[in-house]
């Protein structure tokens, strides 16, 4: 109770003091920029200075710390206005280079999402690539359809556009620049293709995202200077923070930003379409944010180093919202390229480009020094606390328990059983899969009718000679579609259903799934 009250008061103080300009104010800083004597350092230069002369002195000396990040940000996209054709059209569907854009807006407004994929080249080309091509000045094929109205009679069009043709084209990204991000590995025995890149089996590698000690939001950990209205470097041009990003969770170091900026001022060097194998397309977005050292709290977080920024390494082979933590690490260890998991040295590599992030921080620094970029005090600060709610599935889903053959209808065998005896039982009960259990009831193998046929052909006598020892299993409360996927993946038709201690509870077959599930839907 006391703790909660203390936390509440503490949060109150923080909210009151957050953003207070104690060391210097925005007007003062902009004056210095105008005079050409503002002291600007990149986050990495500032870290070095703090190490040499201490935080106090460094904070007095330096006015602005520049940051940068260049990573895959799927929640990105562009609003566009195409202008009206003659006769005009109320577009209800439209495609840019075969990538569908959202048309639930006025006649010739559209939103193109970075993760939308080309209908003719899916997993190779998507909205992110279209944005890169637009900014590169390339010609884009525009196709649109409509039902025709009295005011907008045209029903279809095909033409080409370039960025300059558009009335407005602005990047509007609902979630960018994660403060930090979890890292990924894979404990399973197969290669995984994820939004965190290629993950080799059995902890074969680790991938991570974010720029660590250059990360804009981590350098202003308390969100004291980055808020609604902050002017930023976005995709090589000028952009603004337009609010908290989706899934903003600052209390755990996962703050995010929604940002906006004019595509016409941007550069393809900092906007790159990308594709994650078997996952989909996305956009690498370059963001740089200047952090004015307005008080000592801001200065102290601007000086945080890679080793001060914690990163959990999660097991992406668990297909769940809550993936287990394999190890608690940090950006310094991850960037070193080698991470110890148990006694195994696992190679690690980034998905975000540290090289480009560093360049963005440099470019932004130069822009400020050259009096081309001035700071904007946020109109409003971002929330310092946000609950991150899961999506509850309220409709009951079909689980293995609903469809499995219960234990009492199964035949269980022992490894010492005779092949012939079991073959006879199979014929009597018309069953295809026989789980094999040890004396204490633990599942240790499985035989199928095919194994028995082979055993008879090869003159084998005991089940232990022919049984499969690595058994793929299911759990009673698993969703049926997960289990069906597993069957397809391993090319098998039946899985023993087990509890946590590998005691057999039942058996589920592809036959059960197709017959009972279809029956259920029909009923």
């Amino acid at each position, binding site marked *: 109770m006391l703790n909660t009250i203390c936390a509440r008061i503490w949060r109150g103080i923080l909210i009151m003091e957050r953003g207070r300009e104690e060391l210097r104010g925005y007007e003062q800083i902009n004056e210095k920029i105008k005079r050409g004597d503002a002291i600007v350092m990149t986050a990495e230069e500032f870290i070095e200075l703090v190490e040499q002369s201490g935080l106090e002195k460094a904070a007095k000396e330096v006015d602005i710390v520049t940051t940068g990040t*260049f*990573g*895959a940000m799927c929640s990105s996209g562009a609003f566009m206005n195409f202008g009206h054709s003659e006769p005009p059209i109320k577009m209800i569907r439209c495609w840019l280079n075969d990538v569908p854009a959202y048309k639930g807006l006025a006649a010739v407004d559209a939103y193109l999402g970075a993760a939308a994929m080309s209908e003719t080249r899916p997993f*190779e080309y998507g909205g992110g690539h279209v944005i890169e091509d637009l900014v590169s000045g390339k010609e884009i094929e525009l196709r649109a359809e409509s039902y025709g109205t009295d005011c907008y009679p045209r029903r279809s069009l095909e033409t080409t556009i370039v960025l300059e043709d558009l009335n407005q084209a602005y990047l509007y990204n609902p979630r960018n620049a994660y403060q930090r991000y979890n890292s990924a590995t894979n404990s399973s025995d197969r*290669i995984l*293709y994820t939004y965190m*890149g*290629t*993950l*080799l089996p059995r902890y*074969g*590698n*680790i*991938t991570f995202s974010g720029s660590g000690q250059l990360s804009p939001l981590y350098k202003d950990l308390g969100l004291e200077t980055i808020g609604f209205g902050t002017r930023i470097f976005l995709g090589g041009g000028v952009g603004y923070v337009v609010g908290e990003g989706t899934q903003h969770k600052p209390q755990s170091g996962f703050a995010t930003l929604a940002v906006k900026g004019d595509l016409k001022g941007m550069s393809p060097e900092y906007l*790159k379409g*990308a*594709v*994650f*194998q078997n996952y989909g397309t*996305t956009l*690498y977005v370059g963001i740089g944010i200047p952090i004015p050292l307005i008080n000592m709290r801001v200065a102290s977080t601007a000086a945080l180093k890679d080793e001060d920024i914690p990163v959990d390494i999660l097991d992406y082979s668990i297909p769940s919202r809550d993936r287990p933590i394999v190890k608690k690490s940090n950006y310094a260890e991850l960037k070193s*390229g080698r991470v110890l998991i148990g006694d195994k040295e*696992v*190679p*690690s*590599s*980034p*998905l*975000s*480009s*540290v*090289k*480009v992030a*560093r360049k963005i921080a440099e470019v932004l620094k130069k822009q400020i020094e050259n009096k081309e970029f001035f700071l904007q005090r946020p109109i409003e600060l971002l929330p310092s606390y946000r609950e991150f709610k899961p999506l509850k599935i309220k409709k009951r889903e079909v689980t293995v328990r609903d469809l499995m053959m219960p234990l009492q209808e199964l035949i269980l065998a022992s490894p010492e059983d005779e092949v012939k005896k079991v073959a006879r039982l199979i014929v009597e009960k018309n069953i295809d899969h026989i789980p094999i259990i040890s004396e204490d009831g633990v599942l240790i193998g499985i035989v199928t009718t095919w194994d028995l046929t082979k055993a008879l052909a090869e003159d084998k006598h005991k089940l232990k000679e022919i049984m499969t020892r690595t058994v793929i299993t299911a759990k009673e409360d698993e969703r049926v579609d997960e289990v069906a996927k597993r069957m397809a993946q391993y090319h098998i038709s039946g899985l023993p259903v087990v509890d946590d201690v590998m005691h057999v509870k039942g058996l589920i077959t592809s036959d059960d799934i197709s017959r009972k599930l279809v029956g259920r839907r029909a009923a």
Partner: protein
Amino acid sequence: MKVKLRYSHEVASKPILAEIILKTGLLINILEAKLTPKEGEMVIDIATQGSALKNALQQLRSSGLEVIELRSLVEVDKGLCISCGACISPCPSKAISFDENLDIEIDAKRCIGCGICVKACPRRAIQLI
């Protein structure tokens, strides 16, 4: 030195590689092989250099094989690459790393041409040669 060998119909059934290994005593590692009785292709790594290598390549050629010297098994398009590093840790032979400028560097001696990096690259900047 990595070398690609092309077997034509005439020589596909002859134990050419075994003969050369026996004759020269060289260590030859087979990295990839696709052989049918009709024709085939093989990528091998010959663990030698200088005149011994020249000699071995000469013998392979005179046995009727087409010999293509591979300087590298993969190629990075620097114009597309954004130096993200997504290809580095998935490489099973640890052939890929950042150089001092944080650019991607592929060690041709370590590369086995498996192609995992090709799929791992978000920019589709890597190609098998």
